[in-house]
């Protein structure tokens, strides 16, 4: 399960580029600092590989294993 701390995001787009399932995209809503933070388009397709969290410079993405 991927949780994005949107207030930390600076919209560099690294998570969007490296997501192997292409289920992240920069959204249309700005955070407090004016950045278009990413949103998940299909949470069920997430394989919790944590590549988004690995590449996030700000550590804004928290990945935990999905509860079955």
């Amino acid at each position, binding site marked *: 399960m991927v949780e994005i701390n949107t207030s930390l995001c600076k919209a560099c787009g690294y998570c969007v580029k490296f997501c192997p399932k292409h289920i992240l995209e920069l959204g249309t809503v700005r955070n407090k600092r004016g950045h278009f933070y990413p949103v998940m388009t299909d949470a069920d397709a997430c394989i919790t590989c944590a590549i988004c969290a690995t*590449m996030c410079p700000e*550590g804004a993405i928290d990945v935990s294993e999905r509860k079955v």
Partner: protein
Amino acid sequence: MAEYHRSAMIADSPSGYCPGCLHSLATRLISDVITELGQEDNALNVISVGCSALNLLYWSGDNLSVAHGRAPAAATGAKRANPERLVFAYQGDGDLAAIGLAEIMSAANRGENFTVIFANNQTYGMTGGQMAPTTLIGQKTTTTIYGRDPATTGYPMKMCELISQLPAPAYVARFALNSPKGVRQARDGIKKAFQMQLDGKGFTFIELLTNCPTNWKLSPLQTLEYMNTNTIPYFTPGVFKDITAKEADA
């Protein structure tokens, strides 16, 4: 399946770095490794001057802020006075390869038992993108507006290669932070260096290839491509020296 939870050592607010800057990723990696090793209260970050110093307010560990380029000299004193502490210097390329060249080479030559983490983004980030010793041939900066010309400014300095020629260092390695693979290798490399320091193996040096979207005048995603096509072919990532590998073979 994998999990990732950010280290509690990192401030719960955005870093002072520009969007896409890999300095904040490097700080986060170091903090993750320190948390993993359980050294939160034992780590000492020695920083000098440059964008690298902005991690001062971003992580909650102990800091020692020293004169420009002199982090290895101050870290020597800190480590000799407190041999049980995990001491590391975090320096940029202008700081380490230009102003602090004497300090880093001397500390490496003495084989001081601390770690230097060298963030190489081929420019002076904080002062406005001037040429650094590591600037690539042909790279345009505010002081080499037609591109770096080796006839007048020499060639980019390969610090890992230089330091690995010395007999004293224990571990010398370079990693590129522009791909998930590189980031994971860097994390393992930093962990290994810190563990070697805790085991008293000697001087450890980690070079991290980073970017500067602001001064390279590229978007964050373009900088990652630029690193693939320009930086990585010149600054080849890899392990240049590892005394524990020899011990394992023997």
